[in-house]
């Protein structure tokens, strides 16, 4: 194995080009078919609030582009979108909105199709990278992991920026491999462009593109050449300027807020051993513990340059975890980027085993292929179960119906699913979010105190100021927040309720409040 300009040789059945094409096509077809399962299921299976947030933004852009739409609806859609916090640039949402316009309707599965395509193209790019750095058989092992890991299946269909970010990171890596090998301007521009776009789509991409490309570059060219080459500065410039325009010029302050909200309050976790254990536990559940350990071991078997690139990617992931210690455990999509990293890391060890097995006779090779088919088949079936089991087709109708049953003469605050975005998206009703019990857990984790067993009147009154109604559809939150149950049922009348919801009137308490309203 080597990492020079000459393609590494491959053994076994992959010596023949048509076999490579055939197997690649079969794997892509399998990965694609799996992801199209239950395509029209509403996107509530994975981080519903985050996906519906994107859906609300896309609807706003779509309605803005429709000249004949009811202006009230357009205004309402815009108001909903404006109520959402600005995170990444809404490029994906704009693309989806444009597609709504082209196909003439707001179909949420459009976003799924895009994410799937991003992931599938990402798979092909990954295949290309590993093929150049390791071998064809290694590339197939990486691709198999990338396409058939159940976690990757469910999370590569999401209406969130992650699949696009991962595609752009992989494109940046692939372009950098070509640039570093060929040293021409075209590849340098593409490297900078893809790296910049990846960071633009989601700023955390910076943790992956820079360490990986820099390690690969330094080991290939040596420090002196790197710093004396003008192309290096072009790549650096492009990859920095593109995201900087958005994050520092168009949307200044967002990164500072993010740091203050999600990084600084949780840094103390880094000193706790339980943080690392919980992190590893989380990863084991997502990426398969055996394959995760194998991937880490596999780094050591990669060819020198590929090892440095993979090492850079792993280092980036660790830095990401250190930057957002609470989110890396609680928000599993933060770990999605580890899928291609682990996939690359598995390549060389997998290839070595494959080559050793191809030196056995046909019978034992057949045994190996049976093992491969069982492994992929089981992964595909597990993934399929994950995609079909949560059934949300009834949800839109529920929220639409609920919206019609709610009094329309005042503001709402409440505890409904996905930070009230289901009611907002499907029911066209804005409800201010009241903190969930797990939000309070996060507050406690950040070093502040909150005791749900206390009265918490001041907290409640602060949060519900200027609100007319309090709606609860997550009834189990009452058990997690007993003070809230005591306050609402003890002091406020129920104005409307159903099997899955209850609405309290905050303006007409049935008993005198023990504290004065601020």
């Amino acid at each position, binding site marked *: 194995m080597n990492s020079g300009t000459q393609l590494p040789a491959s053994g076994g059945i992959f010596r023949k080009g048509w076999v490579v094409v055939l197997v690649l096509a079969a794997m892509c077809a399998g990965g694609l078919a799996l992801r199209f399962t239950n395509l029209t299921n509403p996107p509530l299976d994975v981080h519903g609030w985050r996906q519906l947030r994107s859906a609300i933004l896309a609807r706003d852009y779509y309605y803005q582009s429709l000249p004949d739409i009811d202006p009230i609806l357009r205004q309402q859609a815009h108001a909903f979108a404006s109520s959402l916090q600005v995170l990444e640039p809404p490029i994906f949402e704009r693309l989806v909105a444009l597609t709504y316009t082209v196909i003439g309707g707001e179909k949420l599965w459009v976003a799924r199709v895009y994410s799937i395509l991003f992931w599938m193209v990402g798979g092909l790019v990954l295949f290309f990278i590993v093929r150049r750095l390791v071998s064809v058989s290694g590339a197939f092992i990486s691709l198999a992991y990338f396409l058939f890991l159940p976690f990757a299946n469910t999370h590569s269909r999401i209406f969130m920026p992650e699949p696009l970010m991962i595609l752009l990171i992989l494109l940046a890596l692939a372009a950098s491999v070509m640039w570093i090998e060929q040293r021409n301007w075209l590849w340098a521009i593409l490297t900078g462009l893809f790296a910049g776009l990846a960071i633009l789509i989601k700023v955390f991409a910076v943790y992956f593109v820079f360490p990986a490309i820099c390690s690969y570059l330094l080991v290939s060219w040596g420090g002196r050449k790197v710093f004396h080459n003008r192309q290096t500065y072009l790549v650096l410039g492009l990859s920095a300027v593109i995201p900087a325009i958005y994050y520092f010029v168009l949307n200044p302050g967002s990164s500072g807020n993010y740091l203050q909200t999600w990084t600084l309050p949780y840094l103390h976790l880094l000193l706790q051993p339980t943080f690392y*254990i919980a992190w*590893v*536990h989380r990863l084991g559940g997502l990426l*398969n*513990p*055996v*394959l995760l*350990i*194998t991937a*880490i*071991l596999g780094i*050591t*078997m990669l060819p020198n340059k590929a090892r440095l690139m993979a090492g850079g990617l792993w280092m980036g992931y660790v830095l990401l975890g250190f930057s957002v210690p609470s989110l890396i455990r609680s928000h599993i999509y933060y770990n999605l980027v580890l899928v291609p990293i682990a996939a690359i890391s598995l390549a060389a*060890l997998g290839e*070595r*085993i494959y080559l*050793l*097995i191809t030196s*056995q006779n046909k019978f*034992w090779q057949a*045994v*190996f292929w049976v*093992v491969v088919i*069982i*492994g992929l088949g*089981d992964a595909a*079936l597990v993934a399929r179960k994950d995609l079909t089991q949560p059934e949300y087709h009834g949800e839109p109708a529920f929220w639409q119906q609920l919206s019609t049953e709610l009094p329309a003469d005042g503001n709402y605050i409440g505890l409904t699913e996905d930070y009230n975005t289901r009611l907002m998206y499907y029911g066209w009703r804005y409800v201010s979010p009241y903190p969930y019990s797990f939000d309070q857990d996060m507050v406690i984790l950040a070093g502040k105190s909150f005791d749900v067993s206390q009265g918490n009147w001041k907290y409640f009154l602060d949060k519900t100021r200027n609100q007319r109604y309090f709606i609860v559809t997550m009834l189990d939150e009452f058990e997690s927040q007993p003070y809230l149950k005591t306050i609402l049922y003890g002091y406020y009348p129920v104005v409307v309720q159903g099997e899955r919801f209850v609405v309290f009137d905050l303006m007409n308490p049935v008993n005198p409040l023990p504290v004065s309203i601020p």
Partner: protein
Amino acid sequence: MTARLKSINFVWISLIVLIYMAAAGIRLFDLTDPPLDFHPPRQFHSATLARGFYAQMSPPATIPDQQLAVMTAKSELWIEPPILEGLVALTYRIAGQDSLWIARLYSIFFWLLGGIPLFKLVRTISSRAGSLASLAYYLLLPYSVIASRSFQPDPLMICCTLFAAWAFLSWLKEPGWRLTVLAGMTAGLAILIKQVAIFPLAGFFGVLLVAQWGFKRSIRDVKTWVMLLLAITPVLAYNLYGLWIDGFLKSQFAMRFFPEMWTTAGFYLNWLAQINITVSLAAFLAAICGLVLAVCHPLGLGLFGWLAGYILYGFIFSHHIATHDYYQLPLIPLVALGLAPLADLIYNQMSSPLYQFRAKVAVIALFSFACLYGIYEVRNELKKVDYRNEPVIWQTLGQRVDHKSTAVIGLFSDYGARLNYWAFLVPKSWPGQDDPDYNTIMSQPDTATTYFESQTAGYSFFVVTDMAGLDRQPGLKDILSDRYPVFAQEQSFIIFDLRNPLPVTVDGNQ
């Protein structure tokens, strides 16, 4: 021996000792917690038998509830010959108490003992590094830690199976009479302890023998027949006695063979899911690849025979293999042995002079972390629930119904195992879903009442310990709560008094 070699040996031996200490340490954690963490019905079956034997061994009126202990033990049908139970009872007698942790100590000891033949076997196909990884997997895999603490014959069966495999492999190299007898006897013991051991052993012996000697020589050799005789005579004798002389085994052979499951996809998926729960499917498949790399060694081939035996066993016990995780226990040594060649592959790569020192350190650190993480996971699992209050709860229940098994019918969790062991009750179980027409009958109030009365006729108490099960049967729940007073209630049980139904009101309501 040079000083350097001595120092290398010292390091390897220290590592083995360290792994053994860790394995023993984690297994001894929470030792005295009652055995409800792993398949309670199966463990209480053995516990009830052992206590019964102990009561029988002891002079009359020397231990509390002696007669009840004998009576409940007699109600347990033997599955395997109660060898472990007998051994535990003997230890109870010596210790003067029937502490359940004694059985746990035996199981732990047998599992750890099994590590010796495993290590001897793996050394024939692997370097020290691979062997160490294999041993660490066998001893520290979280599932193996939990399962090897259970009062079941399985840890002893696995231990004997490994000794038999080692003896057989040694016999193939030097086919003398001493090893013939040793291999035959250890195999015979393994199969006697739990008959399913015949599958991996037959596969292992058969494939190795034919591959090494050829079919003709194998069947012409007297030692082969002697070994075979030693291996199957004990279990044949036990089965002959159990099936045709005493008859207690007849029920055990019923409801075990379901070939119709073979044609359903669910069977295979559930089987794979069970493998995943126990040894990790990824590790299992990787181990098969490892074995493919080792087929040039006799052991590698033999282990494919073991695998074939396991697969055959899965098809024969199709229901159990797809639903009972501990039926996959024979896979643990197989996977441990199969992973060794792969560990060697990585170690050999690291041993190259070009390899950087820090990479070696990283790999060793990762190996250590994986071991420690496994231990930590098990510790959390064992610490999660404390069952030490359970005996008192069930003893109270037993006292409330005066230990009269004939007076009690009910809906029990764990097939009534806790009730049986701690309350000395062998009550009748409510038929529930076992009756094919149950749902239809219970859906109509009239038929439900008639059915309930016919089933409970002559019983004084309806005991519910399976609360979730009662919630799933609203018809039964309504009858009990509407018509019968609660005689006693605690968090873990409700006793309804069937002797004093609530008075019926004029409009027909209770």
